[in-house]
């Protein structure tokens, strides 16, 4: 791992001025009282266990809730009974949109949901958006910008806000869910959490357990890219995908 970057030379003086503006002369040594800061890994684990249990017990209403909030946030929501149906829904959407250039990420969900075969059967051949051996940074970027549809999985989906948490990693490029104008996200039932609180509690634990090797980056995708910057008129699809599909397994 790269060495930790150095401290900025102005830091000490800056903090000193802040401190004196607050009327203190000494730095604070004990962590201020803030409940969600103080909970250690063990307590956090306990908390997350409860969250997971609750989510398991309430899976079915939570999936319904996700479908509802997603529809309200302009997602096109489809629910699939099984993996096979999910794959054919993806193919159907691609066909309907007249897609030519489809990219997908390389992640586990595609081992279960074989979209490649389904897509080929409708004449679309998916490409995997990953760097591989021969692909440079620029080539990956070009490929992403050329595509007219992206398909990826999610790490979590949050029913409260219809937010899909996408965590880039090996096989999951950031641009796969961002650059193409159309996007399909595949969601598996056990990835769905009820609330934002659930999500951040789980994320905190994941970071603690990753011991400094956690990813520095993740995104919520909660609907189509939109703007109302001209005359307050809602327009869909600016820099990100304007057409967004959510395929929920279950």
């Amino acid at each position: 791992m790269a060495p930790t970057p150095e401290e900025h030379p102005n830091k000490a003086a800056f903090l000193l001025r802040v401190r004196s503006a607050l009327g203190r002369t000494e730095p604070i040594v004990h962590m201020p009282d803030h409940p969600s800061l103080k909970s250690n890994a063990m307590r956090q684990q306990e908390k997350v266990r409860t969250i997971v249990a609750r989510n398991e017990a309430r899976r079915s209403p939570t999936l319904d809730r996700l479908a509802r909030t997603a529809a309200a946030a302009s997602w096109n929501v489809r629910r699939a009974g099984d993996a096979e149906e999910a794959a054919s829904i993806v193919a159907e959407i691609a066909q309907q949109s007249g897609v030519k250039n489809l990219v997908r990420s390389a992640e586990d969900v595609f081992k279960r949901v074989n979209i490649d075969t389904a897509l080929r059967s409708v004449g679309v051949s998916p490409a995997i958006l990953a760097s591989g051996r021969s692909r440079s940074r620029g080539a990956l970027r070009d490929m992403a910008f050329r595509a007219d549809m992206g398909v990826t999985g999610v790490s979590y989906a949050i029913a409260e806000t219809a937010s899909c948490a996408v965590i880039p990693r090996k096989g999951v490029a950031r641009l796969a869910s961002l650059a193409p104008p159309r996007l399909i996200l595949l969601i598996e039932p056990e990835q769905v959490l009820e609330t934002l609180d659930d999500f951040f509690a789980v994320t905190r634990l994941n970071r603690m357990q990753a011991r400094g090797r956690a990813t520095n980056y993740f995104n919520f995708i909660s609907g189509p890219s939109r703007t109302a910057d001209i005359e307050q008129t809602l327009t869909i699809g600016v820099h990100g995908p304007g057409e967004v599909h959510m395929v929920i397994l279950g």
Partner: protein
Amino acid sequence: MAEVKSAEFKKASGRALRDEKLQHALEHVMEHFVGARANIIESDFGDESWESMRTRAAAIKQSTLEHLDYYLDMVDKSVRRNGGHVYFADDAAQANAIVLDIAKRNGVKTVIKSKSMVSEEMGVNHILEREGIEPVETDLGEYIIQLAGETPFHIIAPAMHKTRQEVSSLFQEWLKTAPTQDIKRLCVYARDALREKFAAADMGISGANFVVAETGTVCLVTNEGNGRMTTSAPRIHVVLAGMEKIVPAIEDLALFLRLLPRSATGQRITSYNTFVGGPRAPSDEDGPEEFHLVFVDNGRLNLLRDEVMREALRCIRCGACLNHCPVYQKIGGHAYGWVYSGPIGAVVTPPMTNMKVARDLPYASTLCGTCKDVCPVKIDIPRLLLHLRHKVAEGALGERSTTWMERLFVGQWHGAMRNRRALEGKANLGRLLTRPFARGGKVRKLPFAPMVSGWTASRDFPAPAPKSFARLWREELAQDNVHPNGMEQR
């Protein structure tokens, strides 16, 4: 630093009032924001739980400010642990120098920017341009503003004062696109133009909606996707953050992400939230190789130092106080003369820039209190405005700046109000002086009183009653045979 034109408030607000097109846009947009916010809060939470969320958010932000040195240190350590760089800039000049240095070191030619109010404070675009580096705003509204060479009109809707025709001719001029009235088309033009920039840029600059101390995570809240582009496509990512942007724990974000979009645009959540705390991991497919977080003071210490004003730093820049302010609804953002407008602009501009230049701003409010009711972090804006007025009227020499007329008026009033007899004497004088101008109990014009002549331009001023209430009271009591103190005589 961006120029402070707040001394022009009166003139500029007059211009805005006479601009019909602008009045139309203001009415439309404000109504939309106000309605959307009320609806989503009612449907999702109801008043009571919304209120308790505001209380909790206010407490978290206030406590963070009270321990700001501690949390700044915590962020610094977290981000560096993630492999990012952290800087501390006292003012705009230092912050600009830091950004410029990063750019030059890396031979940067094009910079893409996603919305950052701090960068507006710094005027960083200008600095980059001077060095031959092209800065490109990527938020559609900001992009329009940049092409027009203006400053943002509203915190979250920077170009709301521009019509589609104006945008079309701006694009014609700068992007050589065909004229169109179709807003969708205009968005496509901008998207295509900006796509090229995204692909070419070596550096992305973003603001920060929240900075989480324990994890070093910067949270960006956007709708268009430009925030994601800025943090994904270029090789270097620089974050500019006011030093007050910190929340202690990652779990705090749940609360703030509920409050911010609902207060701002009436959305349940925005289309995108980006969370970034450092450079890409070696195994990542894409993403910036360098991550720099620049904390900026630039006058914020003046707010922090003053125990009353400190709470202004709780602001999460949602714009709700603007949207609900009767004054902002009429004059819009430019009259305030600096980066921040509306009620919160009136609060932070004088202490952050110059109390004398911005002396009109604390008075540019009816103190109606709506801002305080809608603020997601419960900033008591009217109280802060009154505090600033106190400084303008009676503060230290460097801050005080009233006119002789106001002092004369207050002096006279003061004399009268401590003593009923003096009051009645003055009132009698008032009756005498206004009589020539009074018709049917109304004063239509008071030419000799410059302080109130503006009032009588559009409203009648009630002429002093021929008899004071106290005198009527005495007379009535005399008839009823009661003693003036109210005790019936038996």
